[in-house]
């Protein structure tokens, strides 16, 4: 078999996090009973007209700036005409001729090194509704709630060569968009959808092979599987002397296989033309400046800043900034209690352990910066020891308890009663003459045993440092 190279380009649809739809004031909230988030405009009733949501333009500009694009300061919408029941106007308002952003790029890093994936364009468009098949009534129903939810489509250049690069690109893209607040990018809810254009060619070839477009992957893992499956399928065709047909294919993750949806021959002519109901969008220098000023700090900058400002290891900074919510949790906690290293440790060790144990994503952490800050303060003030702190944190993480209340309610506070400690140690020493003898003959192990016994008696609520100190003192008197 010859050696083949896979050429990959992505079309990523991202649902924008605006409160209202792109051309009307209906809510964009996910879920909701069918056909309750719609109005005459988004259901395309005769005579209605679209009015552009300015926030959509700002989010698209923000994404474009973060992806190093040129902003098309005079852009406009076009109509894409096709019939389908989920598209009530029978055209989608989109952008073909003058997309809002062009010519950008994202730097990705994989095991094979760093590279830049080009962004061909970003355009704004409206989402369609959803068809629901009713098996009981043997009919198909339409839910228009999603109609008119704003999307941006980010089209990459065919610059990727492996599934690994595709995942790196998507992860980076997702983080950038989340940091911008432009989208929550939840693949499961469909707010980030990636279509993959894939072709193969012999290593060294300069011409691109015939590509297929793959749809319907709803996780990164499914994307990786789909790429592998399609790569194999195309190479097999070529090896058997057959041709790859330019077509759209639908990935079925359960069957680990893809199926042809439509070929280029029966591809529709969308008869694009300028949307006459919306005037061209003029993005003035001032407006552009305004959006630029509002750009938040993105992941790469944040990572560097954490290393410098908080003096935490690069590895920790990468993990913490890897999820927007985690970074926010970190910064807000540090703002409340200082001690960045301590905060970082709680996130890196205990939080990660619990996330894994609970099979949770960091996005869904529910405890507050204040709760973590208070816990750290309790340790700091010597009110609980670290062992107890871990127990409390687990409750904070799982049940959202207030650390101070929990410690008090369960009597977990450190016992600072020196008299009690002294009498306890004296009792333990008198009950364990052998251990004293061992200690005096130089067996240091005995010391550990005595500390352990004391801690057990004190129900874990004593300061281990103090136990050591007092034991040493009292052993001398025996």
């Amino acid at each position, binding site marked *: 078999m010859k050696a083949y190279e896979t050429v990959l380009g992505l079309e990523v649809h991202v649902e924008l996090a605006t409160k209202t739809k792109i051309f009307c004031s209906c809510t964009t909230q996910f879920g909701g009973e069918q056909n309750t988030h719609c109005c*005459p405009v988004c*259901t*395309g*009733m*005769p*005579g*209605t*007209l*679209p*009015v*552009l949501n300015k926030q959509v333009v700002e989010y698209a500009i923000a994404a474009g700036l973060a992806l190093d694009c040129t902003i098309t300061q005079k852009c406009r919408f076009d*109509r894409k*005409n096709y*019939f389908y*029941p989920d598209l*009530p*106007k*029978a*055209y989608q308002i989109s952008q073909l001729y003058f997309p809002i952003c062009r010519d950008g790029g994202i730097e990705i890093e994989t095991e094979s090194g760093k590279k830049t994936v080009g962004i061909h364009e970003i355009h704004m468009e409206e989402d369609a509704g959803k068809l629901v098949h009713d098996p009981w009534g043997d009919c198909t129903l*339409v839910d228009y709630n999603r109609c008119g939810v704003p999307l941006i489509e980010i089209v990459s250049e065919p610059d990727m060569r492996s599934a690994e690069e595709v995942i790196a690109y998507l992860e980076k893209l997702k983080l950038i968009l989340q940091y911008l607040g432009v989208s929550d990018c939840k693949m499961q809810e469909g707010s980030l959808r990636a279509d993959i254009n894939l072709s193969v060619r012999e290593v060294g070839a300069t011409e691109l092979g015939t590509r297929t477009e793959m749809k319907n992957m709803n996780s990164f893992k499914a994307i990786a599987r789909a790429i592998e499956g399609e790569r194999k399928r195309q190479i097999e065709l070529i090896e058997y002397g057959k041709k790859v047909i330019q077509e759209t294919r639908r990935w079925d993750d359960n069957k680990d296989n893809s199926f042809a949806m439509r070929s280029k021959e029966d591809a529709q*002519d969308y*008869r*694009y*033309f300028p949307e*006459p*109901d*919306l*005037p061209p969008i003029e993005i003035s220098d001032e407006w552009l400046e305004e959006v630029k000023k509002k750009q938040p700090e993105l992941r790469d900058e944040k990572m560097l800043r954490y290393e410098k400002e908080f003096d935490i290891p690069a590895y920790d900074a990468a993990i913490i900034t890897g999820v927007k919510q985690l970074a926010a949790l970190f910064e807000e906690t540090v703002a409340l209690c200082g001690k960045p290293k301590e905060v970082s440790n709680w996130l890196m060790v205990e939080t990660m352990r619990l996330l894994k144990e609970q099979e949770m994503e960091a996005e869904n952490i529910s405890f507050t910066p204040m709760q973590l800050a208070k816990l750290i303060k309790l340790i700091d003030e010597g009110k609980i020891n670290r062992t107890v702190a871990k127990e409390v944190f687990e409750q904070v993480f799982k049940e959202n308890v207030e650390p101070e209340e929990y410690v008090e309610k369960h009597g977990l506070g450190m016992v600072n009663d020196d008299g009690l400690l002294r009498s306890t140690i004296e009792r333990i020493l008198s009950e364990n003459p052998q251990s004293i003898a061992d200690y005096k003959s130089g067996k240091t192990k005995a010391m550990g045993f005595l500390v352990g016994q004391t801690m057990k008696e004190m129900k874990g609520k004593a300061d281990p440092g103090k136990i050591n100190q007092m034991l040493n003192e009292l052993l001398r008197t025996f």
Partner: protein
Amino acid sequence: MKNITTLSALELGKLIKNKEVTVVEAVKAQLEVIRKRDASYHCYLTVMEQEALARAKEVQKQIDAGELDFSPLAGVPMAVKDNMCTKGTNTTCASKILYNFTPPYDATVIEKLNKAGAVIIGKTNMDEFAMGSTTETSHFGETKNPWNTAHVPGGSSGGSASAVAAEEAFYALGSDTGGSIRQPASYCGVTGIKPTYGTVSRYGLIAYASSLDQIGPIGRNISDCAAVLEVISGYDPKDSTSIDKDSYSYTEALVDDVKGMRIGIPKDYLGAGLDAEIRKSILNAAEVFRSKGAIVEEFDLTAVNYAVPAYYVIACAEASSNLSRFDGVKYGYRTENYEGLQQVYKNSRSEGFGAEVKRRMMIGAFVLSSGYYDAFYNKALKVRAIINEGFQKAFEKYDIILGPTAPQTAPGLGESLADPLKMYLSDIYTVSVNLAGLPAVSLPCGLDQKGLPIGLQLIGKHFGEKDIIRAAYSFEQAGSYIRPTLIVSEEGGIA
């Protein structure tokens, strides 16, 4: 209570305000006339008898409470072309495909009329989806010209123009995409204004060609039209193509004074194809202006010679997209005869649309299809820009442009549809105004030997409505309104 229906809208408004006539009396009188005449003319698709009477009482209360003192049109019955959405009342575009469509909302113009105390008395007939120049493409049968029922009223707002001429409404709203207000106004001997694109909100107007459509008034004189335009114009946040201007007080322009006004007549509007009688009538009108102190001269406006093909490419392209939503899925007509989705689309649309609409949608789909876009659609956009430039240049020299509205008077019923190309060419003097987005008025300037009205067209610069209203008013003062001899049928009913 007799003969109030021959009054102008403003005259009736004054009587109502002075409590000489109640709104209910006015509405009843209007309904009575409709009952007697509409079987002969068929201006209406829906007569809103119950709604109008209920509304009349409501408006009377508001008038009595002094809430409508600002509105000279309060209580005056009027008609609306059936392509403007009226909440709860059928809005069909005279098409089978929308035969049962009841909008869930009111068009902005309807909201504005309601605020001004208007009483909508019915929805008027039109060419199907406003495509046609005769009102014969209506799925519900043609409207007849009140001057001669063997002739068409023009179109597409033929029902509105005919209703105003036949005194079945005091005034009406029409829509004008390529002449659909001005040409029927001309054929029916009444006055109609097509405002500057962006002056009147299109929200709730079922689109034919979005970049050309404008709603405007049809009345028995320019004063009524100016008063109505004042009510319906203005920026609408629901229509992004509507434009915010500081002044909409068009009635201020009702002044008999054209002294020093510079009026240009395009030679291209007087050449081959123009009926000799109309030519004479237009030149007579020019003389009237000259005698009142205006400066009138002829000039070249060659760009308009390409207006008809450019218009049909652009209008059909937009229509093919705008009318795609009528697919039998959500509302309107659905075929009974289908298996699967493709057949729902194909059969509903094949059975639901008439021939002229299908022709235009096919032309439109063709000019936008891949490989033809540049040769047709893009080229038409270039022509549009050139026409716009031609007018801009002309308006550096002239305040208004004068010419005929149509090359002929109303053709006989059945004459036009046999030769669509000829029908398209008859839009020659009106379509360029829509392409350039300019305001224009058509007003009666005489009758031909057949006794059919001739229309004079006055075109203004962008947002120059006041110039053409002033000129039209001055012209009106030099003559008097001629009404047709109307049919009175005692046993007639509502069609």
